[in-house]
């Protein structure tokens, strides 16, 4: 039970990273590979926020004047993850535009068959 309390978030984040990496390595359709990239990015963001958590802490917003600055979670990883989510969607849009162009040129999206046409 103590083990579960401490490590459940790490287990979930690393599970997502491993499933995403397996999809990138072993699947042969290009859009499946891009889906695996997106799953891996979600896992990395979850890991970053889980490292910055303090037990018994609360969100770092002073909405009322009597909230004191004890026991707040770490605000720096949240700022980094905010940037990372937006950059992830920009990379995804660019990758999908390249996939659309590849389909128009080769007629298929299977990576093994595209690699065989050497020219």
């Amino acid at each position, binding site marked *: 039970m103590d083990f579960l309390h401490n490590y459940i978030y790490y287990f979930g984040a690393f599970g997502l990273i491993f499933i995403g990496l397996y999809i990138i390595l072993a699947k042969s359709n290009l859009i499946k590979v891009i889906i695996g990239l997106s799953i891996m990015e979600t896992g990395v963001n979850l890991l970053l926020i889980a490292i910055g*958590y303090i037990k018994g802490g609360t969100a770092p917003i002073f909405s009322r004047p009597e909230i004191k600055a004890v026991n707040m979670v770490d*605000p720096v990883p949240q700022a980094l993850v905010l940037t990372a989510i937006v950059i992830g969607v920009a990379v995804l849009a660019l990758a999908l535009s390249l996939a659309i162009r590849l389909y128009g040129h080769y007629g298929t999206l299977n990576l093994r068959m595209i690699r065989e046409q050497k020219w």
Partner: protein
Amino acid sequence: MRKLISIFLLSVMGFGIVITLQNIPFGADKARVSDYYVNKGVKETGAVNIVTAVVVNYRGFDTLGEIAVLFTGAIGLGAVLFGGKKPREKKPEPASLILRTGCKLLFPVILLFGIYVFTHGHLTPGGGFQGGAIIASAFLLIYLGGREMKFNKTAAKVTESFSGLIFVIMGLLGLTSGGYFLLNFLPKGTANTLFSAGIIPIIYIVIGLKVGSELAGIIENLIED
């Protein structure tokens, strides 16, 4: 064969990670930089939301880099998809009456909610990026229901370019009024009111408009029917 090799490599990686993870305790107090930000954040910047103060004021240069990456991604998408052969299928039939009326009624409400979210970024959870994404999903609703309203591409490009320009001009104004780039030079005001925290609301309004028009332009480029 390929699947077996990938599973073997991933299990080797997993074993190494489990050994490393014993040294990272979950929920213990680790960093000292965030103690400084939480204790002195409200007095130095005037913003009540500490994450906003870190993103815009203490690490404002990283936000400028992120806007540059988003801009490059949108331009790259427009350049790759330029002049492709348009798949001229049959024209889509117009949507039913309930869908059309619902979308036209919901569009200004969602736009107003997005503007509320990025204007109050320094008081409640929210900010420029979240508000911009809400505005872009309002434009997605137009493609679903009301196809008769055309999307004004020139207005989107002008909004996006001017918003990026105003961000850099605010930074240069901070440089000229004694100090460094992106100095917080406007008066701080009293905390927890709307007109407070120096240049933070102005920068978040600019970021919200830029991200919203950029994402709507990405969707317009992809649909292109």
